[in-house]
């Protein structure tokens, strides 16, 4: 394993050190720290730190209502097979990685929205991990059902650790959930791991259970959020939408109401999900929901239950397999709301401004698609 660190990693590490150095700082030590920072900007030492004296103050505790704005990028739902079987999806993920690597300036981190693999095979996950290593910015990753149900998450956790976690970034509290927990439908039916995986991967089948976050994760979530003030900036990631859209396709989380109840006390919460492979927008009270694009294929819209706020993207071009696919960027604002940038590979990008969601679709309406929805 090479010991190379990306510029961004070095930057964060050095800044971390700078902040640590500020604790119990007396005047003399303060000058020393700031001189180091200034030296960095003047090129006297390796210029990995761009933190001049003005930054030499502790950031507010995570979750304060207004803070630094920043931006992260996202990639989601690549559904990789082993490359000998299908290399088109691998090319899709490569393209997304290239897109993100070419963002200038680089995003603070890249969020991967789940379903890296198609059938949960260790080789599929390793292949995906190999491609994702090409990202320049740090990676944050979430699990999807296609990653999980062959070996019940063994390989995925081996690569990426526990699927449920939280982290703070520039005053925003991020929560990553495993929302694809299903009740055991396979033991009684004596299914093989592959049968179980393929059942979960299918649409329109009544065999499998519904996705849930589950009681233990809900308890964890409540505890994790407990220290935060009601006006904290909170962004939650879930693979399936944390609401009930269309059950036959598992565009659905069965205990969504309970999870929403936990989030209810906040002034506003952003929930970002994968799984649906399309431009998908919803708002339930204080919770703003955004679906992510896939790098593999776009799903059609559910035949019923579509949220009114959704600006439906056009039917994808059947002659262009990358049409309707893409990746994107998420600028996070000082008030905790986001711009959602859908970077569609074969079309003009769509940016959903917070004003659109805040005004229930009355203001900042994204330009109407020039072709009918499907």
């Amino acid at each position: 394993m090479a010991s190379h660190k990306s510029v961004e990693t070095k930057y964060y590490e050095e800044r971390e050190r700078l902040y640590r150095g500020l604790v119990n700082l007396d005047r003399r030590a303060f000058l020393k720290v700031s001189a180091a920072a200034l030296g960095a900007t003047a090129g006297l030492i390796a210029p990995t730190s761009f933190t001049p004296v003005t930054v030499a103050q502790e950031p507010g505790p995570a979750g304060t209502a207004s803070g630094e704005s920043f931006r992260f990028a996202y990639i989601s739902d690549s559904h990789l097979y082993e490359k000998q079987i299908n290399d088109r999806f691998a090319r899709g993920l490569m393209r997304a990685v290239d897109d993100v690597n070419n963002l200038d300036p680089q995003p603070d981190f890249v969020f991967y929205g789940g379903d890296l693999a198609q059938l949960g095979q260790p080789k599929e996950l390793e292949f995906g991990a190999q491609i994702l290593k090409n990202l320049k910015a740090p990676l944050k990753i979430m699990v999807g059902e296609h990653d999980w149900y062959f070996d019940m998450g063994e390989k995925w956790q081996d690569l990426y650790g526990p699927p449920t976690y939280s982290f703070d970034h520039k005053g925003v509290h991020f929560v990553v959930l495993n929302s694809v927990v299903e009740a055991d439908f396979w033991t009684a039916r004596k299914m093989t791991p592959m049968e179980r995986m393929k059942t979960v991967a299918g649409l329109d089948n009544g065999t499998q259970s519904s996705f849930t976050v589950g009681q233990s994760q809900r308890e964890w979530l409540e505890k994790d959020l407990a220290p935060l003030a009601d006006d904290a900036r909170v962004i939650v990631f879930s693979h399936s939408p944390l609401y009930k859209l269309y059950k036959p396709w598992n565009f659905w989380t069965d205990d969504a109401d309970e999870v929403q109840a936990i989030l209810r006390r906040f002034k506003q919460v952003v929930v970002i999900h994968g799984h649906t492979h399309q431009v998908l927008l919803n708002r339930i009270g204080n919770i703003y929901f955004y679906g992510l694009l896939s790098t593999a294929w776009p799903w059609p819209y559910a035949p019923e239950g579509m949220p009114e706020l959704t600006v439906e993207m056009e039917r994808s071009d059947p002659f262009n397999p990358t049409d309707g696919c893409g990746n994107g960027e998420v600028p996070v604002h000082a008030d905790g709301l986001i711009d959602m940038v859908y970077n569609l590979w074969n079309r003009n990008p769509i940016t959903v401004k917070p004003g659109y969601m805040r005004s229930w679709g009355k203001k900042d309406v994204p330009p109407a698609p020039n072709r009918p929805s499907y």
Partner: protein
Amino acid sequence: MYCVKWFGGRGRSGVAALTILVAMALIAGDVPKDVPRDEHGAALVKHQEQVLDQLLPKEPADGVPAGVDPVTWASLVPTDNAMTPERIALGRKLYFDTRLSADGTVSCATCHDTTRALTDQRATSEGIRKQLGKRNAPTTANAALLHVLFLDGRSPTLEHQAKAPIINPVEMGMADGDAAVAAIKDDAEYQKMFRAAYGRDVNYEDVGRAIAAFERTLVFLDSPFRRFLAGDENAISADAKAGWELFNGKARCVSCHPMSPSNPLGTDNRFHNVGVSARHQDFEKLAREALKAMADDPSEQRLDELAVGTDMSELGRFMVTHNRSEIGVFRTLQILNAGITPPYMHDGSMETLWDVMDHYNKGGEPNPFLDGGMEPLALTEDEINQVVAFLFTLTDDRFADENQRQFAEQKAKAAQKRPFRDDDMATRRTLGFEDRIKAEANADTQKGAK
């Protein structure tokens, strides 16, 4: 979409058509191989005009071209530029007139030479002072039937398109439209012709209109393949028939080159990155430079200069839309008459149709913007030969001799070298992106990934 009549063409009985075809073949056969050429390699104007007289149908040139549905044709001709003999005659004169170039050596016909399939059959075109542009000249044959013009689609109409090369510094090099008008406005014959055609004095807009009206007479649809589609089983060879099957199937050509009675050109009139410019460009750097250059001067003329005369040519459609997803993306060319319009691709980088097939067979050159429809095809050598045989049946009968000559010449070249052939990629023994996924570089930043 166009509607084209398929059975015998407009106003022709079968016997008459045959007579005309034979007559034309004889006439075309009369064209000497060693034609007198000018300093840019184009045939001399007098000779080009003779050839053109033989190519164009004897029926009134201002009418609907043979084989094109009159209603469709009407929709293609702008209302302010209806076809009249006066306009066509004026456009023809302008098309051949080198006075429209800054040094008096280049006309439209220099790069759209009637003796060279209405293109110049060279990789990229030569303008005034021997300057080379960056793009391959597409044929003006059937340009009237295209939805948008230029390889990046930056022009919506023939009228608009015709005005651009005259004022492009590496093509005809006039400073602006006024300079072009000044070069011809004292010519009494032009004064008379402009007045007869448009009822006005010499002006630049009407220069564009007249050339467009003339170009609308350059319709060449009468191919052996067309007769095959119309029911003549013997019009094309068994190999070509097999090639047609492959074209619609394994070779995937039809995805972007739909060929049907209603769309005989074989273009979807859309834009794709098929990985041609990927071979030699740093797209990202170029795109940033292009955005800066166009922010400094967003004019149409500047765009034309950058697209034709600089490396930014390789960005293709991106130059027009500034949309990242359209980097390296170019308009799908018509494939009618493809056999006689080498070299191929937007930069003329492929000498033969075998090279083109090799390129597509390996799934194009891998690059982040490659069209989603590009896949390795695993075509065998026999299958490649069959598709090429098919492509050579798409040439208009009036160019039959040139078609035969090109087939022999390209076949000989392909026997010598196949620079784009890559059987490993074509059969997926190696994948286009494999060398790029081996990075361990950032592994440490993602340990635990959170």
